[in-house]
């Protein structure tokens, strides 16, 4: 991660991004019925828990919920999951790091940047949403 990232805050992942990985697991293995074939897939959630245990998770709060309601009233047209992530970032006054600028840039007041292309060999689960605790004071 760029030095500027380390200087500001510790990155966090949103709870919504965390759930994404488990949705992916269910989608991939829900139809599996070979007991032997399940040995490896059933180890995956344990690996995911191990992964997330090293991250601080930005939680869904009452403030996030209020912001989501406001954004819906404003008819911000981005995906439901993205809107939830944006709400968490706004509630936390966080800088959102995402590879999906196209959608997140539609959210008023949300500061979003794409640093992932600058990070070598950095595999988070989706390679997607990281959040820094506080926005930098200057852009």
């Amino acid at each position: 991660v760029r030095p500027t990232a380390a200087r500001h805050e510790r990155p966090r992942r949103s709870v919504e991004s965390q759930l994404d990985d488990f949705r992916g697991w269910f989608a991939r293995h829900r139809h599996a019925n070979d007991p032997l074939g399940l040995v490896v897939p059933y180890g995956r959630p344990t690996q995911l828990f191990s992964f997330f245990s090293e991250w601080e998770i930005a939680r869904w709060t009452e403030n996030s919920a209020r912001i989501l309601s406001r954004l819906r009233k404003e008819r911000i047209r981005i995906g439901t999951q993205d809107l939830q992530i944006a709400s968490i970032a706004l509630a936390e006054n966080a800088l959102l790091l995402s590879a999906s600028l196209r959608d997140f840039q539609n959210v008023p007041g949300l500061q979003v940047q794409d640093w992932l292309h600058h990070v070598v060999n950095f595999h988070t689960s989706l390679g997607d949403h990281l959040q820094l605790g506080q926005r930098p004071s200057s852009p």
Partner: protein
Amino acid sequence: VASGSLEKRVAKLELQVAKLQGELSTSPPKNGKDWRRTIGMFTDDPGMQEIFEEARKIREADRRKTRAPTAKRRKPTR
């Protein structure tokens, strides 16, 4: 205090502050979590990559649903 001495003391302090700032930015958090330990965790794991790909598809589907035009077909007027 001689100005030369003061300058040296300030320079020394600046060096110490810079060092402390460097330590703050690189030391793991006190709660024991350190996201840096997850770097490359799944790089060579095709099974995990498949899961992330499924998750990415789900997210993309959610986005497409929103981007799709919602205009309903008008009933023909007589």
